[in-house]
């Protein structure tokens, strides 16, 4: 399936289909249901320096064609990740992208430093989780200077390809994407969840204790697609597109818009076979349309 291989900066993927951070745990959770070796890459749950408890219940709220979540980055923390979770993933013939997130620039640096000697393929710098406190003003990925600083420092410390994961909750995502490109990011992941609200009409209170929660799923697909379009216009590095991708047609829309790679998120909950169905579908699409290579389609949007 060489026609499906793509390059994300210095990172070569056997196919463009990844599973998105936060929807696939540390990989092991899905190993009984699908062959992890077939995936282009696995992006881990975002890791923090210390284990994180996460937010109180409720954490999930189903909406029409979507899912609101407020998990609050519950994760095992760096030490357990390195000791237990990473060795498990290393057994598989797929790219491992470790997602990291911190409460401060220093914490991102400490994570990058600590992970330097570990064996994996790339770092995803998650500067866009809507369910935890970043700065007093908002998310890191809503501030171009902080985005630049975090990506720059992580890049210098880690020597691994760095992917910056951005928030769509911003007027001009292109400005942030450019700052990350300038800071040395090899790719931009577009996008994290959209800010959403759900209300309990009996109590007149928000469903989530944080009020805001992140919306994902097919409901956000056109919105995410437009963010990919905006980022693609702003930068020259590869874009990893995600947001409500449920089948091959969805993936193609992202690829045509300019995504070099795509990630399946909540689709994994709907049907764990979706990523593999997309890979198979893309190969058939190439064959039946006489394309030798998926690169012929990436960014082929005619405007």
């Amino acid at each position, binding site marked *: 399936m060489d026609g499906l291989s793509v390059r994300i900066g210095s990172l070569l993927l056997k196919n463009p289909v990844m599973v998105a951070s936060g*929807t*696939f745990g540390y990989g092991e959770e899905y190993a009984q*249901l699908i062959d992890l070796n077939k995936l282009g890459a696995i992006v881990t749950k975002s890791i923090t320096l210390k284990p994180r408890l*996460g937010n109180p*219940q*409720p*954490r*999930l709220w189903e909406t029409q064609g979507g899912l609101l979540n407020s*998990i609050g980055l519950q994760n095992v923390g760096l030490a357990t990740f390195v000791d237990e979770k990473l060795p498990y993933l290393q057994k598989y013939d797929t790219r491992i992208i470790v997602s990291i997130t911190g409460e401060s620039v220093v914490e991102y640096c400490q994570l990058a430093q600590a992970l330097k000697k570990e064996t994996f393929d790339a770092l995803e710098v998650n500067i866009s989780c809507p369910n935890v406190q970043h700065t007093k003003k908002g998310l890191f990925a809503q501030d171009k200077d902080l985005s630049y600083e975090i990506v720059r420092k992580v890049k210098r410390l880690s020597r691994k390809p760095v992917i910056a994961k951005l928030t769509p909750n911003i007027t001009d995502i292109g400005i942030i994407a450019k700052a990350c490109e300038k800071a040395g990011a090899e790719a931009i992941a577009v996008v994290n969840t959209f800010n959403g609200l759900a209300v309990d009409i009996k109590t007149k209170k928000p469903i989530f204790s944080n009020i805001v929660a992140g919306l994902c799923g*097919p409901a956000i697909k056109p919105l995410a697609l437009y963010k990919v379009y905006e980022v693609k216009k702003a930068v020259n590095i590869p874009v990893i597109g995600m947001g409500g991708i449920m089948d091959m047609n969805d993936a193609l829309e992202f690829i045509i818009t300019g995504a070099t790679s795509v990630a399946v998120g909540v689709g994994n909950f709907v049907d764990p076979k979706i990523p593999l169905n997309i890979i198979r579908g893309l190969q058939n699409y190439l064959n039946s349309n006489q394309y030798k290579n998926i690169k012929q389609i990436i960014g082929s949007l005619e405007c």
Partner: protein
Amino acid sequence: MLQAKCRVLANSLICGNFFKLVLQNKSIAAQAKPGQFINIRVDKGQDLLLRRPLSIYLAKDDKLEIIYKVVGRGTDKLAQVKEQEKLDVIGPLGNGYTLTAGKALLVGGGTGIASLVFLAAALKTKFNSVPTVLIGAKSKEDLLCFTALEKIGCAVKAATADGSVGFHGLVTELFREIVAIFSTHPSMVYACGPRPMLRELVRLCRHFRIPCEISLEEHLGCGVGACLGCVVKGAKNEYLRVCKEGPVFKASEVIL
């Protein structure tokens, strides 16, 4: 754990707003243990994204039976599924009840009784002893599984909120009366039902010093432990996944 398209052998109203779903799948049925659940995709389209987790009522040969109540859009959709259609199922999932020898007392509320029927049958098979079962319901029409439990050979007692049959009051009040009367306490309590019922039952078990296992219900995202959406507070102040560490927990493991 596996994913399979299962043929629907039956899906019919049994009483009140309760349905029985019979699915055909040998592999899932063979693996299933009492207290485990299956995760069913109820919407082939993209409106309701999440699967619906339902605990297993019976698993025998190639049949898997589920009892569910229509409570929202997902179960409403499930109730419309016709015989011979196929449903996408992942299961069996989660940790079930620990089967222990001795005098067991089972306490179920609402559809929570379903997984306890599977447990009662398993206890009988394994230890040749039948447990006593207390069933709580709103009224006579909502009383589930009474006959099925009697067939297994269990002593069954009902509690209804409106007093239309059996004990007039909550099943936890019935539990308290029964345990207080008997000089020998049950060696183990297994319970499944609404959160307030479980909370009170756990409190009583602690009071009477009876070990207790409870099966929890929660909104699930992935059902396999990946998304961390379905957590419950653990005794060490950590969050435990209902779908993975549960749905059955020792009462001492969790804070309800």
